[in-house]
């Protein structure tokens, strides 16, 4: 792990990253998927995407957390293996019920002729699945 950001700063970037993801999905399904293609909607979506990418680069890529949660066990020491394993365990615990809730919400929404299972929602879920362990480490660990 290469970065040395304070935990408060990391938590700020985590909030920014997840917040921009949620707002991005909300804007897409609230406006674009509903047929509204005004420049404000598109502009806000672009701003959210830029915020998402920049906060990802700061808190996940720049601190080395991406490498830590995606590299093989042979490249980690015993403490890193332990904290990564814990983060992965917590990620499963969060991601599975959250995804079930989203699928349930999508099923209910489709009953009202509001179909949200196009490419954006699964892409958001896949992104979340990949970053969750790193986000948990960024949130919890004193030093990364």
């Amino acid at each position, binding site marked *: *792990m290469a970065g040395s950001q304070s935990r408060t700063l990391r938590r700020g970037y985590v909030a920014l990253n997840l917040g921009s993801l949620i707002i991005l999905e909300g804007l897409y399904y609230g406006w674009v998927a509903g047929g509204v293609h005004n420049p404000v909607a598109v502009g806000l979506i672009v701003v959210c995407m830029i915020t998402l990418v920049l906060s990802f680069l700061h808190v996940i890529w720049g601190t080395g957390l991406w490498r830590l949660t995606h590299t093989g066990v042979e490249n*980690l*020491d*015993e*403490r*890193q293996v332990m904290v990564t394993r814990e983060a992965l365990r917590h990620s499963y615990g969060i991601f599975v019920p959250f995804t079930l809730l989203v699928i349930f919400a999508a099923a209910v929404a489709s009953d009202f002729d509001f179909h949200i299972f196009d490419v954006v929602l699964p892409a958001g879920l896949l992104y979340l699945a990949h970053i969750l362990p790193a986000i948990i480490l960024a949130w919890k660990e*004193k*030093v*990364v």
Partner: protein
Amino acid sequence: MKPRKIYNRIPVFRNERNLSRQDLADLVGVNYQTIGYLEREEYNPSLDLAFRIAEVFGLPVDMVFSTKPMKPLSEVLRDHLEKEGD
């Protein structure tokens, strides 16, 4: 089972030997941040890592690690000298 806290004298022996955290980490094969966690006593090392660290310092493992808070070395030496004097 809740693990016990393991106390250590890593910062003392590391500074005595003018080793940086990175130097010690390289010698025992861990990340330098793991040395920081060990020194702050926020992480209990495996038996293998504890022995490797003790071997770097050339000391028995119980001189470096303990399950009880460790006295400063000056106090240990004074106690030893007092015992010898008795």
